[in-house]
């Protein structure tokens, strides 16, 4: 579904990504883990078109993504739940969800989607009239995820959904993600620093270090890998 090959990108000629290749198949849950500054967020921003690559290709469902304007990429079915949530603070919860449903598919499936989103994340139904800027961090994260789901995406990209959240809330978010995935069969690409949880939820994983793919494998091989156990899982 998503195929990234030899991607090199960065800011003002300083490459953050150095020939990264990643593949996500339909229905797969893929996690990208790695330390701070490895280029995980830059990778997502390049897929969404906010950062321009200097080399490499991105293909999404037979479309050459780099030839498509950033604002059109959501309409192909890519939902980006950005780092640090980035909800629209002066819009209400409901209006934020409506913004997530700006795509054609989102318009068509609005009723159905909103029902499911409220079922998965009931706090959003409770707070629907409240301004998003007044929600707590965990609630904002749930809103950001709900907003991503509202567009009926084919690929959901989540950038560090646990960032800055209390461990119990982060656990709850992971639990919700697994449940959402189980019920919807959505293709998910997750970037995460909480390596243990990420590898546990995903089918397949990549370890990104200093802008390169250092390791790749299905979740069992990765979790059994000595380097990962030492460096990330503390075993």
């Amino acid at each position: 579904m998503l195929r990234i090959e030899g991607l090199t990108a960065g800011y003002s000629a300083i490459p953050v990504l150095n020939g990264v290749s990643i593949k996500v198949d339909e229905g797969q849950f893929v996690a990208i883990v790695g330390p701070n500054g490895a280029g995980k967020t830059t990778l997502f921003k390049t897929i969404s078109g906010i950062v321009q690559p200097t080399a490499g290709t991105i293909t999404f469902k037979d479309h050459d993504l780099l030839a498509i304007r950033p604002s059109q990429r959501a309409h192909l079915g890519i939902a980006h739940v950005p780092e640090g949530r980035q909800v629209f603070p002066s819009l209400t919860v409901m209006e934020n969800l409506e913004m997530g449903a700006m795509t054609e598919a989102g318009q068509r499936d609005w009723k159905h989607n909103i029902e499911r989103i409220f079922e998965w994340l009931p706090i959003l139904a409770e707070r629907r009239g409240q301004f998003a800027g007044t929600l707590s961090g965990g609630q904002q994260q749930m809103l950001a995820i709900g907003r991503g789901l509202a567009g009926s995406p084919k690929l959901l990209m989540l950038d560090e959904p646990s960032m800055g959240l209390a461990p119990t809330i982060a656990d709850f978010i992971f639990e919700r993600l697994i449940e959402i995935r189980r019920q919807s069969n959505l293709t998910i690409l997750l970037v995460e620093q909480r390596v243990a949880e990420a590898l546990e939820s995903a089918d397949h994983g990549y370890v990104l270090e200093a802008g390169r793919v250092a390791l790749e494998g299905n979740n069992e091989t990765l979790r059994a890998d000595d380097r990962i156990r030492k460096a990330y899982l503390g075993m």
Partner: protein
Amino acid sequence: MTQALEGFLQALSAGLLIGAVYGLMCVGLGLIFGVMRVINFAQGDFMMLGMYAAFYFFTAFGVQAAFGNNFGPFVAILLAGPVLAVFGYFVHLTLISRVSGMRTSSLEGEGHYAQLILTLGIALILQNGGLLVFGSVLASIRTPLSSSAWELGPMFYDVSVFINKARGIDAVVSLVTMLLLTLMITRSRIGKSLRAAADNPTAATYMGIDVDRAHRIAFALGTGITAIAGGLLATNYPFHPFVGVEYVIVMYAGVVLGGMGSLIGAFWGGMTIGLVQQMSTLILPTQLQNAAIFVVFLLIIFFRPQGFFGRMVERT
């Protein structure tokens, strides 16, 4: 006693009426600033163009013949709005978009320096171009309504207040326009996407909102709104190609008073300025009207630096 009360009520009503038009004028600028964060120095000159557009619609394009002297001017003014909106749309497309929006979002200062120079340049071109095309003679959109009044009263203590008919209609047109704009911004899909683009352009792009297009719509709307306000002012005040300079200061004062980025705030900011301007004539010579505006402005900003409706929050 009766005379003092009458003077007070007269100034108050004049302030409210003129304030409604000033409010609309500020809303046009506030919309552009709120959505795009672009400081537009040419807004006063867009308003000047709106005045001339209404003037020529009225006198040269048959509106006077079709709608008569009483209501013709208002029809011409409402026509000038969309025309200036189209003008604003193309100014954004060809000029402003080159130094704003997603193109400059990653630059240092987000392109603000270039925006200041560009809009100042547009202002100069419009002023001097206006002088060439329209000439330096004072123009005005006169209607018999500008020199007749409704009498309210006599009320308590035999007090009556006179409402200038043209100003009364001006205020009603302003309020209706403001109401329609507010409904559009708060209720419609396009209005919501404008607010989302203002809140967080990057996240709006992730939603599939074309932020540059949202900016273009805001710029066009803001230009059209200010043009309507300009036309309304022109029914009472004569104008010339450099008139924008006088009003742009009032516009900025109103937007800052209301709180940068708040439309309803910009309206109340403009309203406050209209009220202060008219009420100050009760105790000060008319030459000091503008001085009074800025004394009150400084006082309000001293006690409430974020403006009436501004929020003291960090933008994410």
